[in-house]
């Protein structure tokens, strides 16, 4: 009987403790939830907090998957990003025709280099890993990354860019291994998805800094990003970074593949604005769809990058481009990589337009749409409703309304 009483007292005490804990938890907004995964799974591969709900979304212009079941373009939630690395799960996905992600057994994987070479060679994944590796942080950006007036958020204006640490074999090393012959000037790389998407890049770029990559952010590539092996062509339009890489042919001319012909231009001025990305940046906070909760101090922050190399400087304007101030670079600067910038800012309730402007190591400066319009002899507002020629690295302005709501100022 005594022991029973003691047990009940203990239970009550315990209950009080649990109740007290519950009160503390709700006071701090922490509500315990039943674990959805087994402890074994939790130990094996960690998950983010269920409070974190940042997700990718398809582009506005095209459903994904479409009625053929093909994935097109899926956008990275840049508005939620911190630092410079995009989590692999949130890396944007772009495919040319649209593709069904191929299932490739890494044990069966083969990569062939042939064409104008002395020794054509076929590598297994295991053999690729026996070469000296490099790990480099680079952005990847799709040519379709074009802000439009109808886009509400930075995810929609600019979410077809992401940044990862890529690990793999320098392509130049493999090309030396096979012995590129005199007269060769281009390479054609080819994926193993159902359309076997292929693209041509100049041999000079292939020998410069490209990576035959098998690693992304410390683990194997994700299937949507080319598992088990993809090409990384730093600073070039996304499409040249062939996913599910199966073959490279060394050739003596531009091959005009399906992927290539979509990118050609007759106008040398336009053609010069393809292949390599120009300097670009975007403010991720405050950005479209967000709301400042009140007056006071905020950090304007965003990402800057350039296909021309390292970001040298970022300017921020809080008055629609009339005056500019130097932003701080917050973190490491890598060549052809997202670079985090920021600036203290006191908002006092006024309506204003925020802009960022990137200058890279080559001295290239990110343009406004009006500046591009001037070069192409069209009215200053022409490119508000038309895509700019070549790859679009123009400034996306955000308008902060007096109630703190943030809107796309192109609208």
């Amino acid at each position: 009987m005594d022991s029973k009483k003691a047990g009940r007292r203990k239970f009550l005490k315990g209950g009080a403790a649990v109740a007290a804990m519950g009160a503390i938890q709700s006071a701090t907004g922490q509500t315990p939830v039943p674990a959805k995964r087994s402890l074994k799974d939790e130990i094996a591969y960690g998950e983010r907090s269920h409070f974190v709900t940042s997700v990718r979304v398809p582009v506005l212009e095209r459903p994904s998957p479409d009625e053929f079941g093909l994935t097109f373009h899926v956008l990275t939630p840049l508005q939620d990003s911190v630092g410079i690395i995009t989590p692999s799960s949130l890396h944007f996905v772009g495919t040319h025709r649209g593709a069904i992600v191929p299932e490739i057994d890494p044990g069966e994987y083969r990569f062939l280099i042939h064409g104008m070479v002395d020794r054509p060679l076929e590598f297994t994944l295991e053999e690729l890993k026996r070469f000296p590796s490099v790990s480099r942080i680079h952005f990847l950006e799709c040519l379709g990354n074009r802000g439009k007036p109808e886009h509400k958020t930075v995810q929609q204006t600019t979410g077809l860019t992401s940044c990862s640490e890529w690990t793999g074999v320098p392509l130049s090393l493999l090309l030396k291994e096979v012995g590129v012959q005199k007269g060769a000037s281009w390479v054609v790389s080819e994926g193993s998805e159902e359309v076997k998407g292929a693209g041509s890049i100049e041999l000079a770029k292939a020998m410069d800094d490209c990576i035959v990559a098998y690693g992304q952010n410390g683990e194997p590539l994700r299937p949507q990003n080319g598992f088990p092996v993809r090409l990384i062509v730093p600073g070039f339009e996304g499409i040249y970074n062939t996913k599910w890489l199966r073959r490279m042919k060394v050739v003596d001319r531009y091959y005009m593949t399906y992927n290539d012909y979509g990118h050609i231009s007759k106008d040398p001025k336009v053609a010069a604005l393809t292949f390599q990305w120009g300097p670009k940046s975007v403010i991720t906070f405050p950005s479209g769809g967000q709301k400042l909760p009140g007056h006071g101090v905020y950090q304007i922050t965003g990402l800057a990058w350039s296909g021309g190399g390292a970001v040298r400087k970022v300017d921020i304007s809080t008055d629609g481009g009339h005056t500019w101030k130097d932003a701080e670079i917050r973190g490491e600067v890598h060549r052809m990589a997202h670079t985090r910038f920021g600036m203290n800012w006191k908002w006092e309730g006024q309506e204003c337009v925020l802009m960022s402007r990137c200058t890279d190591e080559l001295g290239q400066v990110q343009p406004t749409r009006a500046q591009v319009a001037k070069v192409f002899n069209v009215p200053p507002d022409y490119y508000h409703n038309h895509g700019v020629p070549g790859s679009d690295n123009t400034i996306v302005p955000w308008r902060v309304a007096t109630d703190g709501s943030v809107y796309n100022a192109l609208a």
Partner: protein
Amino acid sequence: MRLRSLLLLVIAVVVTGGLCHAGWAQSPTYGLGKTPTAEEIRAWDIAISPTGKELPPGSGTAKEGAPLYAQKCAACHGATGSGGRAPELIRSESTTPAPGKQPPCLSPCIRGANVMAIHSPYATTIWDYINRGMPFSKEETLKPNEVYALTAFLLYKSGVIPEDQVVDAQSLPQIKMPNRDGYVLPEWKHGMPRPFPNKP
């Protein structure tokens, strides 16, 4: 004594290290990878140059291509080559969007003329793409004659070649495409800026 053996060790390391290094320099390869046979390479190699040098034997005409198109392509691309769920293949005035009314520009980003037979500077691009990527979910099932015939059909329907022209490995690269001179290629160099606009 101890110092001497240490010295000897250092010398040994330097000498063998040097030899190793020399060995690397003399060896042209890591010795990794397998040398594929010519047949293996042929089986992999589906990239067709604008010169057509990789094109296989075979031939086809637009007449032969018409029933093939109806059977293998029309369900997705539309009976007339436009208005289907899949991209337009045959240009028609009624489906050519007015300037400013083009579909959203994701790649291939060819405003107002996103038809391969109109826009590609070389007919080889059409042959290459049908061969590698079509029909959807039955890729690489078409025989070379069928690919030649379908290429001929699209070119005929787009007004590029006459209906009875025989398209084969020799004639395909010779076809004068409407956009033959429609591109320039910028030369890429390390550290090369874009030409403009690059002033604040």
